[in-house]
């Protein structure tokens, strides 16, 4: 697979991941109002599919890109930082997705930390994007 195709797949996966984060955030904001909380959980199944799919593919194509191009190395600081941030983001998104699925299926109580976790996820995704654009330390 060529560089352009790998980049397209990597970026599309990143968009998928960000879309899932957007769905998580929409559910969290709607949870603040009793009127909308049950309705917003209708978004949970789609978010629960997009998050793991986007998350897995973004790291697969990202590592593939780093291995494919001689100018990049998996040992570069900005790539290591991105992988660490991806692990943190995956853990947060995984917990949010599981929590919303549980709420939608069995009516479990909302996670009191959900809004804080969503904000942490937004910040993590934003820092990954800044890292990907600025590539600190890349020559």
């Amino acid at each position, binding site marked *: 697979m060529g560089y352009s195709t790998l*980049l397209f797949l990597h970026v599309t996966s990143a968009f998928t991941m960000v879309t899932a984060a*957007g769905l998580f955030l929409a559910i969290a904001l709607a949870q603040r109002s009793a009127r909308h909380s049950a309705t917003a959980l209708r978004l949970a199944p789609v978010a629960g599919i997009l998050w793991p799919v986007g998350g897995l593919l973004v790291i697969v194509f990202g590592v593939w890109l780093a291995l494919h191009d001689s100018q990049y190395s998996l040992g570069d600081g900005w790539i290591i930082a991105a992988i660490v941030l991806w692990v943190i983001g995956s853990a947060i998104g995984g917990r949010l997705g599981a929590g919303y699925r549980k709420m939608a299926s069995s009516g479990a109580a909302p996670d009191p930390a959900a809004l804080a976790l969503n904000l942490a996820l937004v910040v993590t995704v934003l820092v990954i994007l800044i890292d990907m654009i600025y590539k600190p330390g890349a020559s």
Partner: protein
Amino acid sequence: MTLIIRPDSWNLPLLLHVGGAMALVASVTVAAVALIQGWRTSDASSAALKRFGARTLLYAAIPSYFVMRIAAQWILSKEHLENSNAAWIGDGFLAADFGALLLLIATIVANVAVRRDPDAGLGKLAKVGASLSVVLIALYVFAVWAMTTKPA
């Protein structure tokens, strides 16, 4: 393949362009999912999903579009590509400007549907909004393909 590292002065407009595009795709998708879920159900939550989808288009998708589009023009001028005939730039303009028209129509019809009948299910207008949101998502995938592969 040897990559050319872009000048540092291009990073901020590119960050805003890509970040705005991500927020745009995420908000249009949130609206599409809400409207389609409202379409599929006949219970009372249909009206709430319609309202949620319409408001998401108005308050999240439209502002995100402006961030993406203004930053696109900024990065274009930084790269001195304003008068370029490159196909990928034309594709980008097509997706952004034709997409703006579709986004505007989707936002108007969905919000008019909410205003006309706030407690009813989707209705014809909101279904048009839902359909246009799905078309927009396909258009944005095409734009990402054009921006990343830069076809000649």
